[in-house]
C-alpha cells in the first residue's frame, strides 16, 4: 500500500488532523480546579511571626479541629484534612472511576475490566463469538473465560473469593424499561438491516444478524438510570455524576476551551 511521505490529502476521509492551537481557559474553568483547591488547603499553614509557643498551639488547634476541605469532584461527599490526604483520596476515588456509570475501582486495571465488560459492545460481540474474554480479576493470574459465570467459579475455586461476590451486579430493569428496550431493539434491528449495504467490511462477522442484534440491544442499554447496586465490587458514591470529563457532556461544554486539532 503506497504511503505518501508528503502531506497526505486525507480529504476523502475527512479526518480532523492534528493542528496545534493555543488553549486558553478562564479563571473559573474546571481546568484550574485542582490548583484552586491548593489555595484553600494550604491557607491554614500560613502563620508568620509567631512565637514558638504559638506555633505549637496552632498545630494543636489545626489538628483537633481538623479543618477540612470538601472534595471538589461533583457528587463526592469526602472531606479532606490536608493536601496529601486530598491527593490520596483523589487517586483512590477519582482516577479509577467509570465515567459511564460512576463506579469506583481501586485500580485502573479493574476499572478497565469493568468498562470492557459493562460498556463495550465490541467486547460482547467477541463473547458472542466464543472468545475467552472474561479475565480473572486477580492480577498476574492471566486466565480468561468464556462467560461471566465461569470466571466467577474460577475466582471462588482458585482464589477463594466468597461465593456471594459479584464483580458486576446486574440491576433488575423495571417492566416499563424492559418494554421500552424491546421496542427500541426491534426498530433498531430494522434500521441496521437497511444500513447493511452501505457499511464497510470493518470486521468479519459470520452471522451478522445475531451479532448486530446483540450489539444494537446493548448499545441501547444504558446504566445511567438504573438503581444503584449495593453489593458489587465497585462502590458507587453519590447519585450525582462523579468525574465526568467535560468533553463527554457535549451540550454542557464550556465554550471557552478550544477543541484540539480539527481543521475547520
Amino acid at each position, binding site marked *: 500500500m503506497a*504511503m505518501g511521505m508528503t502531506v497526505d490529502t486525507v480529504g476523502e476521509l475527512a479526518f480532523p488532523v492534528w493542528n496545534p492551537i493555543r488553549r486558553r481557559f478562564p*479563571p*473559573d474553568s474546571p481546568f484550574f480546579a*485542582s490548583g484552586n483547591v491548593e489555595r*484553600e488547603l494550604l491557607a491554614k499553614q500560613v502563620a508568620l511571626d509567631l512565637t514558638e509557643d504559638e506555633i505549637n498551639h496552632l498545630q494543636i488547634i489545626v489538628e483537633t479541629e481538623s479543618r477540612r476541605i*470538601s472534595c471538589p469532584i461533583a457528587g463526592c461527599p469526602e472531606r479532606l484534612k490536608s493536601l496529601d490526604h486530598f491527593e490520596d483520596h483523589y487517586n483512590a476515588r477519582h482516577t479509577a472511576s467509570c465515567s459511564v456509570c460512576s463506579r469506583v475501582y481501586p485500580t485502573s486495571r479493574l476499572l478497565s475490566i469493568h468498562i470492557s465488560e459493562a460498556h463495550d459492545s465490541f467486547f460482547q460481540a467477541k463473547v458472542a463469538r466464543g472468545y475467552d474474554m472474561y479475565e480473572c480479576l486477580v492480577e498476574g493470574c492471566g486466565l480468561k473465560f468464556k462467560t461471566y459465570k465461569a470466571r466467577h467459579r474460577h475466582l471462588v475455586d482458585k482464589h477463594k473469593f466468597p461465593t456471594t461476590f459479584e464483580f458486576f451486579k446486574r440491576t433488575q430493569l423495571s417492566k416499563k424499561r424492559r418494554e421500552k428496550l424491546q421496542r427500541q431493539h426491534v426498530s433498531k434491528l430494522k434500521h441496521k438491516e437497511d444500513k447493511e449495504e452501505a457499511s464497510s467490511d470493518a470486521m468479519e462477522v459470520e452471522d451478522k444478524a445475531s451479532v448486530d442484534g446483540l450489539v444494537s440491544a446493548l448499545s441501547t442499554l444504558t446504566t445511567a438510570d438504573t438503581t444503584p447496586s449495593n453489593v458489587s465490587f465497585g462502590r458507587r458514591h453519590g447519585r450525582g455524576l462523579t468525574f465526568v470529563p467535560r468533553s463527554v457532556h457535549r451540550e454542557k461544554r464550556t465554550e471557552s476551551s478550544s477543541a484540539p486539532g480539527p481543521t475547520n
Partner: protein
Amino acid sequence: MADDGTASNRRDPIKSSVGNVAGQRRRQQAVTVAKERRELLVRAKRLCRVGTNGDVEDACVDNEMMIDEDQPILEAQASKAVEELKSAVQYQGKGAMQKMVIALRELRRLLSKSEFPPVEAALSAGAIPLLVQCLSFGSPDEQLLESAWCLTNIAAGKPEETKALLPALPLLIAHLGEKSSAPVAEQCAWAIGNVAGEGEDLRNVLLSQGALLPLARMIFPDKSSTVRTAAWALSNLIKGPEPKAAAQLVKVDGIMDAILRHFKKSDEVTATEIAWIIVYLSALSDIATSMLVKGGILQLLLERLATSKSLQLLIPVLRSVGNFVAVDPKAILTILIREQNTEESIVGVLAKCLRSEHRVLKKEAAWVLSNIAAGSIEHKRMIHSTEVMSLLLRLLSTSPFDIRKEVAYVLGNLCVESAEGGDTKPRIIQDHLVSIVRGGCLPGFIELVRSPDIEAARLGLQFIELVLRGIPNGEGPKLVEGEDGIDAMERFQFHENEELRVMANSLVDKYFGEDYGIDE
C-alpha cells in the same frame, strides 16, 4: 500594633481557611462539574482568630477542644453577649464607650473560638444592626476594630450569614479610607474580603458601593501586613468571571506599578496574594496584560518560579505565566527570549515544575509548554532541543491521567507546524515526530485512545494518524500495530461517539485495509 516590624511582640493575623460546610449544602444534583467546582472554590473566606491589633489571648492560648456538646452552650453565650451589647449601645451615661468595647470584645471572643462560631445564634439575637451602629464615624479605634472583627467572622461561614453583612458594607468600605488607623482598615478589608469571596452577586454589590478604589489604595504603601490582607481581599473582588472589576482596577493610577513593585520585592506570602491578582488580571484584562508585560512581569515571574519552594506561591505564578503565554504565545515568547538576561530560561523553569512532586504544577506546566509548542518553529525547536523532552516522555507513561493529557498536547504540538490561514494543511515536522516516537511515546498515546475521556481518545487517534502518515519508509503502521494500536482503534467500531467512530474506522480502513495482512 507594632509597626516597626520587630518580630518579638508582633503577631500577624493567622489566616486560615474555613471548612466547607456551606459548599456541601449547596450542592445540587443536576449541576455540571464545572459549575460545582466553581461554586465550591470561589469560597475563599478566612476566619479571623487573631485580629490585626495583635490581640492573641483567646486564639492560641485558650486551646479549647470544641466538641459538639459545647455548641449549644456557645450559642447561648453568644445570644447573651449580643444582649449585653444591645444594652451597652443604648446606655448613654458615663463610661458608655468602655461598656461597648467590653461587650464587643466578649462577642468577638465567642466568634473567634471554634471551627463553627455561633454565628446563627448571634444573628438571630440581632447582632448586625448593633455592630453597624458600632461602626459609626468618630467611634474610637478599638470599637471599630472589635466590631469589624465580629463582622469578619460572621462573614466567614455560610452564604446566608455572609449576606447578612449587607447593611454593614457601606461603613466597612468607608473605614478603608486613608485616614483610618491601619489596623482598623485592615480588619475592614478582611471582612470585605470574606464578603467578596462569597459569590459574584456580593462582589457586584461591593463594586457598586465603591469598594475597589480604597482597597486598591491600601496596596500602595510598603507595609507588609496591610498589603497582604488588602491584596487578598482585592483578588477576591476581581476574580470574575466577569472582567469588569479587573478593568476597573487597571484604571487606578499607579496600581500596576505597585503590583510590580510588591511582586518583585515582597516576602513570599505577600507575593502569593499579589500573584493571584496577576492571575486574574492576566486572564480578564488585555490592557492589564500588556501593561504588566511592558513592566517586566515575565522575568519576575520566571525568577520566582526558579527560586521559590512554596507551593502556594508557585501555583499562581505558574498560572500567570500560563495566562500570558496563552494570550499570544509567539509574542510573549519573543519577549521572553529577548529579555533573557538571567540563567532562567522559560523552558528550564517549566522543566523544574515538571520535576516537582506536585500534581498541579506538573499539569499546568505541561499546559504552558503545549501553548509554547503551538507557536513558531523556533519555539518548537527550543523545547525539542532540551532535556525537557525526556521528562515529558516519562510523564506520558507514568503520571496521572490529567497530566498525561497535557503532555500529549505538548508532544503532538511539537510534531506539527501550526497552520497559517484557513486552508493550508498543517505540515508534519518529521524529525520531531521520529525522535518522539523513538523516545517511546506510542504506548502512552494508545493508552489515551483507550481512555473513557473523549478528548483524550481523540488526541490519541490524531497522534496515531500523524504516525501513520508521517513516519518515513511506511513504518508507521507497523509501529502502531506493534503497540496494539489496531486493537485500540477497533474498539471504536461500535462506540457511541460518532466522531471517534468515524476517525478510528477511517484510519483502520486506510492503513490496515485488505492489503495489509492483519493477523486475525
